[in-house]
């Protein structure tokens, strides 16, 4: 655990913000926050504050982009100029374009695009305040917004990042740990299907650490999935999803 400039994790294994190696930052999720969008969600994850909105299915413009057999899923990840300490130029940066692409690719396997031929489904992820792990937070919110819009989905998508501080695997890196730490690994999963739809890695991992970080990301992802469920069921059922039995009425 030596070698890092700032002591990101102390002798007792406590991180800068007081978490242990395998703890998450506090997460708050809300579904259906925007009236004008077909579906929307809001997430607060640590210091991240992100809104996701879904529009569609709708007609594709420009027309030459139409896919005859399925929907075109468009994603835009954008950071507000005031989301970071120093004003960010609102024009999409290289990084935002890349994150838009990976978010799209993380969501596509869950959306049944074949059910909406010749249409476009637009997902807008707007970062109002940014912290570490904003792409996985964006994915988590965007999949809720898609479900809120009533688009056929095989499963929800939930993201979580893990990483390295020195040689210690830690879950859910914040901004400082992301910048000063030794590795970052965002993972998105479809928990019911048991599939991974996003896996990015930077840093140098031993085989053991890679395995450990990957498994930790999945374990934490499943934990966040429960919060996702709760947000969605609160919105639509006013609480937990229930099962009731009623007598069959003959038509």
């Amino acid at each position, binding site marked *: 655990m030596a070698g890092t400039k700032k002591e990101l994790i102390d002798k007792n294994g406590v991180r800068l913000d007081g978490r242990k190696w395998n703890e998450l930052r506090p997460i708050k999720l809300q579904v259906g926050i925007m009236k004008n969008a*077909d*579906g929307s969600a809001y997430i607060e994850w640590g210091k991240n504050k992100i809104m996701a909105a879904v529009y*569609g*299915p*709708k*007609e594709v413009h420009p027309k030459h982009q139409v896919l*005859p*057999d399925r929907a075109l899923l468009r994603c835009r990840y954008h950071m507000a100029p005031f989301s970071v300490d120093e004003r960010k130029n609102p024009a999409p940066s290289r990084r935002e374009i890349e994150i838009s692409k990976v978010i799209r690719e993380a969501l596509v396997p*869950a959306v*049944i695009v074949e059910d*909406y*031929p*010749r*249409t476009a489904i637009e997902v807008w992820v707007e970062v109002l305040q940014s912290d570490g792990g904003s792409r996985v937070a964006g994915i988590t919110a965007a999949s809720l917004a898609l*479900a*809120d*819009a*009533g*688009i*056929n*989905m*095989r*499963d*929800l998508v939930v993201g979580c990042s893990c990483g390295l501080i020195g040689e210690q695997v830690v879950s859910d890196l914040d901004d400082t740990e992301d910048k000063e730490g030794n590795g970052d690994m965002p993972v998105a999963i*479809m*928990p*019911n*299907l048991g599939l991974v739809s996003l896996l990015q890695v930077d840093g140098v991992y031993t085989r053991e650490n890679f395995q450990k970080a990957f498994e930790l990301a999945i374990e934490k992802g499943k934990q966040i999935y429960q919060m996702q*469920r709760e947000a*969605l*069921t609160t919105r*639509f*059922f006013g609480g937990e*999803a*229930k*099962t*009731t*039995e*009623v*007598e*069959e009425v003959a038509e």
Partner: protein
Amino acid sequence: MPMIQRKQVIPGDVVAKGNYRYGSYIEKRGDEYVALRVGVAEVGSDGIKLNPFTGPYLPRADDEVIGKVIDINGFGWVIDINSCFDGFLPASFVFGRDFSPATHDLSSKFGVGDILGTRIEAFERSRDPQLSIRGEGYGKISSGEIVKISPTKVPRVIGKRGSMINLISEKTGCDIRVGQNGVIVVDGSPEGITKAVKAIRLVEEETHAPDLMSKVEAALGGSVVGGN
């Protein structure tokens, strides 16, 4: 009496295991039936059905839809049916077999902005839905107020065998036409229209409240507003 299991589900939830007949918004994976939408799944002796809570309107053949003319071209009218696909009403369906763009003036029949009650004649994935106005009651709707609701809530607004819509219609003295695409036209006296729209909004807001009928009845009150 056989029992129905009612399950509140979100996408990815297993609705049931075994062997059932199943409808839309459900996918079969091995011997599991998985929900694709947020809604209530009903597992009964005759199969599994999922009633979604949200979602866009997707055209189905034989649906009655209410739409607005947004364009006229040489062969027919393009109609906005509150869906991701525009409806097309071919001129030959209106003028008959001997229609020719040279002799018939399409805009004399329906102009841009007109509201039409139509039926979906045909729809398949590769082409936009084709509409027709053949049949009783289809065609231009010249008066009334338009109310748009979520298409997933149309069945509740209509009610079992039209019970809800009949109730609202009787209590307010209004003529109410409901399109499967979530477009409703209410026509009657101004006070009646206001009441009917309120009742429809109530049904939309409290779609899944138990005993919705009596709630709506209470909201409409006893006073019957006569039509003009």
